[in-house]
């Protein structure tokens, strides 16, 4: 039998040596190689000062109603098209859908006063109109992921006449039911004070916040795992793509961040029907369009119950809730998402579009 102190010390030392090696190798690979993301061919059909709208090429569109994928304002949209065999948008394209995706870009100091009124009422509405014109369709299907799910829900409540179907993936809705570390921290910070000092929420602030979650399994062990699998080219390139995405954190517009913390997390205003967008009260009960709500049972960023409640709030007669055994990212960039979640979503959407004669 070995002295447990010595055994632990050796294991700890081995881990930290590999961790350091993994970190250095990651930096080396990242600086020497171009990490390709966003492999599904697309045209950029709109470029604003910050925002871009991507339209994915598809020769075999089977369904007329176009889909707009609305990503969050945290990190970048290309997590939904990270690698060819796990591309969320690529899968939808292969299923015959006409897919667009919003790239929110990077806010600059001049954007510090932008709020949800601007992101949803102005920008998203402009993009929805553009897609309607481009596709000659009266309505669009919105697919929102995480904060993008919250934004898509708000937009649907505001401009329901332009939305055929609402699909939400891990949306932040009822924060009184969110006991995740993220929610606890969000509820304890003073957003007004932070924004007063910084203008926009700095990217490094957000990055540190997220790396603090799962500090050992994600923060340390993933680099050990990287060293252990460094010769496996498939593993290595996937790992580096995710690393690129994790470090690609834009700032968040100050005004919007204050609303996100104060209204959504602290006051739970969206669930309570006390959230105002462009001067109008957002009442989730006013939503009547078909809803497909996708939730992860092991989500450590948005507690499942926080998203699940959306189905209780909306008045849609046609509403579906699916809870999958995976984590937050697993919902959109995993084998499960490719083999189970997206085919199920595709079937649901096809049925809706068929019923609507589209």
């Amino acid at each position, binding site marked *: *039998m*070995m002295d*447990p*102190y010595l*055994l*632990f010390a*050796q*294991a*700890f030392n*081995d*881990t930290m040596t590999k961790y350091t090696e993994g970190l250095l190798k990651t930096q080396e690979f990242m600086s020497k190689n171009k990490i390709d993301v966003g492999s599904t061919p697309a045209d950029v059909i709109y470029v604003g000062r910050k925002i871009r709208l991507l339209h994915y090429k598809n020769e075999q569109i089977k369904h007329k109603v176009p889909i707009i994928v609305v990503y969050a304002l945290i990190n970048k949209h290309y997590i939904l098209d990270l690698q060819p065999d796990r591309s969320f948008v690529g899968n939808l394209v292969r299923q015959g859908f006409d897919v667009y995706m919003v790239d929110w870009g990077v806010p600059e*100091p*001049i*954007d*510090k*006063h*932008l709020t949800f*009124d*601007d992101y949803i*009422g*102005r920008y998203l509405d402009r993009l929805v109109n553009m897609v309607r014109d481009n596709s000659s369709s009266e309505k669009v299907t919105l697919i929102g992921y995480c904060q993008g799910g919250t934004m898509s829900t708000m937009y649907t409540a505001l401009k329901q006449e332009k939305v055929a179907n609402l699909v939400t993936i891990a949306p932040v809705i009822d924060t009184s039911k969110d*006991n*995740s*570390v993220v929610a*606890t*921290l969000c*509820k*304890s*910070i*003073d957003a007004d*004070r*932070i924004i*007063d*000092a*910084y*203008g926009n929420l700095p990217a490094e*602030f957000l990055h540190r916040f997220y790396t*603090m*979650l*799962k*500090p*050992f*399994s994600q923060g*340390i*062990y993933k680099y*050990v795992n990287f060293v252990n699998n460094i010769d496996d080219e498939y593993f290595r390139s996937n790992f580096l793509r995710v690393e690129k995405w994790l470090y690609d954190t834009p700032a968040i517009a100050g*005004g919007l961040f204050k609303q996100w913390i104060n209204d959504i997390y602290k006051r739970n205003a969206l669930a309570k029907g006390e959230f105002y967008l462009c001067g109008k009260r957002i009442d989730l009960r006013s939503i009547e369009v078909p809803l497909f709500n996708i939730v992860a049972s092991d989500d450590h960023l948005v507690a499942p119950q926080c998203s699940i409640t959306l189905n209780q709030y909306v008045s849609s007669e046609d509403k579906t809730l699916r809870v999958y055994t995976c984590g937050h990212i697993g919902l959109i960039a995993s084998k499960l998402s490719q083999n189970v979640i997206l085919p199920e979503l595709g079937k649901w959407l096809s049925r809706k579009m068929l019923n609507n004669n589209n």
Partner: protein
Amino acid sequence: MSKEKEDEIIKLLQFVINIPQFKAFMPIKFLESYEQALLNWLRITSLLNANIIEYYILISVTWIEASKRTLECIKDMDERDKEKVIKLWIDVFEKEFNKLLGSEKFANVIGNITNAYADMLKSVMDLVEAHLKELGLPTRSEMDSVYREMVKMKRDIARLSEEISMLKGSIKTNNIVNMNK
């Protein structure tokens, strides 16, 4: 220097600086506001230090607790199980630290640290603002009001465009109705 000592010195400085006879640069407004900003910076730095110490205490206590649990779990293992031990200590530490990260106490400390950082940055900006004013250059707060105005104007333009297109639509409809008459 202990926190108590720092507080004492700051209090003393604040007292001294407010005695009119001791105001070294009374006639110069810029230096007066500079003095205030510097004092504020000192106060915030001391507060930040106190919170950072509390943060590291929480981390250390959790680390010790996690180490104890790991040792308890590996007491029957030997060198051949090293890979298992690595996975085990990562797992035990993750659980212990997740408990800490999800606690209200930790959230409060993080909240206090971010507030203190923000206040510190703000106090530095106050110093810069004082300099810029003195040099007759646009300050951050002045630029800020321009940004605010711009966003308001953009919103107004968007609203007006929407109203114009609605009006155009209704004029078109009226024309069709009139033509049919």
